[in-house]
């Protein structure tokens, strides 16, 4: 695993993720534009966002100055070393800071010091999983802080939002989360939701839901129906792009579920801003065989 090609692939992955939004997201924003009235503030806002997306791609520079927490999902075959992959990722982050693909975005929480091009516990986040295929697959999400801050979790029953332990209760929680996020999360947003699990696994799964493409249909018909219902109702709220009012409040809703224990019933919501930066690659025999999304 001491080949330079994998390091190059990681650096290119970071460049693409930070500067070039995936086609499913751009398409959804363009579709949103069609639903907004011409010359409305919502229409102008989406036009400006599309202009920004185009500029970032042309310049290979971050589309948002908050390049977020890099969250990696790595699947690898038997025999690959996690330690080696971690080293490559840390090196790629260092170089990406100098190439301006990433902002120096790591802060020592206790001293308040910005650690520049370094990495440390909590930054980046890497989720490793061995799998049976014989190639490595890496997906990177750059998760901005503004939208991460509006993510939330409910433990049902929750009387604040009048939510019991059923799908109607889940629905009320999610709509409440969309309403509270308003313009702070940089709408139009995308929701990753998990029902069930424990506090940690539930949040983790809600974020993992965001790896699904926007056009991906839920395999579970009950959850699929809930996704469509939340999508419709959220856009009815009228929050619109950046909370200026309009039809386009969400670009997508992705819901998964985990088993739970009798005392717990969590609903976890991860909010992703319109700058939904996720990219990936597959790597085999010393070279990148495919780019994802």
């Amino acid at each position: 695993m001491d080949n330079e090609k994998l390091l190059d692939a990681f650096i290119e992955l970071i460049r693409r993720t930070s500067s070039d939004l995936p086609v499913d997201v751009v398409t959804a924003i363009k579709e949103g534009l069609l639903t907004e009235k011409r010359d409305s503030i919502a229409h102008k806002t989406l036009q400006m966002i599309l202009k920004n997306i185009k500029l970032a791609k042309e310049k290979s520079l971050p589309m948002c100055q908050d390049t977020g927490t890099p969250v990696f999902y790595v699947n690898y075959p038997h025999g690959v070393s996690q330690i080696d992959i971690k080293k490559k990722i840390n090196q790629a982050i260092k170089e990406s800071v100098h190439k301006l693909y990433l902002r120096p975005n790591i802060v020592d929480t206790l001293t308040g010091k910005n650690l520049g091009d370094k990495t440390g516990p909590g930054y980046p986040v890497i989720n490793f999983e061995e799998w049976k295929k014989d190639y490595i697959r890496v997906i990177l999400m750059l998760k901005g802080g503004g939208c991460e801050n509006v993510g939330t979790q409910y433990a049902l029953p929750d009387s604040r939002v009048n939510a019991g332990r059923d799908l109607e209760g889940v629905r009320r929680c999610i709509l409440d989360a969309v309403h509270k996020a308003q313009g702070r999360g940089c709408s139009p947003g995308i929701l990753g939701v998990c029902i069930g699990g424990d506090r940690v696994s539930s949040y983790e799964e809600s974020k993992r839901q965001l790896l699904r493409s926007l056009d991906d249909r839920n395999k579970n018909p009950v959850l699929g129906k809930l996704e469509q219902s939340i999508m419709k109702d959220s856009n009815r709220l009228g929050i619109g792009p950046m909370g200026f009012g309009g039809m386009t409040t969400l670009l997508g809703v992705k819901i998964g579920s985990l088993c739970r224990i009798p005392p717990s019933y969590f609903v976890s919501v991860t909010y992703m801003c319109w700058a939904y930066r996720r990219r990936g690659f597959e790597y085999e025999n010393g070279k990148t065989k495919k780019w994802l999304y």
Partner: protein
Amino acid sequence: MVILNSPISKKDVVKLKAGDTVHLNGIIVTARDVAHKYLIEKRPEKYKKLLKNGVLYHCGPVVDRVGKKWIIAAAGPTTSMRQEPYTAEVIKEYGVSGIIGKGGMGDRTLKAFKKHKAVYFHAIGGLAQVLAECVVDVKDVFMLKEFGSPEAMWVLDVKDFPVTITMDSHGNSLHKTMYEKTEKVLNRLTLKGGGL
């Protein structure tokens, strides 16, 4: 559309109304979490002249150094609400006329806007490239070593910086009205027992 030059006199501030779209020209100073805490806890005198009638920008830019020159490579707004505990005091103490950010601010700040004559300019979140192109020059930087590049106070000269006034000096907040309006719809949607 209104074209405004910063610094902005209090006389001009009161003419501005929530809903106005503005192109901002002149000097703006970035300040975010660490800078706000510093401005209030240490009350450094040296910034009083710079910030008098000035505009603060809630932003942590991506910055490049080419020779002796600083280049702003990405510079969109960050969430303003985090500065809510400090902003009323910053406006009073330093005589600031405008805040650029995203997501709007709370009641304390809205009251301070009314009392000390200031407005909130809403920039589109994530618009880092479009807004970086509006930066004509980096005039100065303060507390770079102490705070690190995203939290430092960058003094930027901007041209045609596109913003919308969402909170004015007459007590109007579009964020507040939007929150209340959408809350009514939310209550309706959750009361009827669902669209499932």
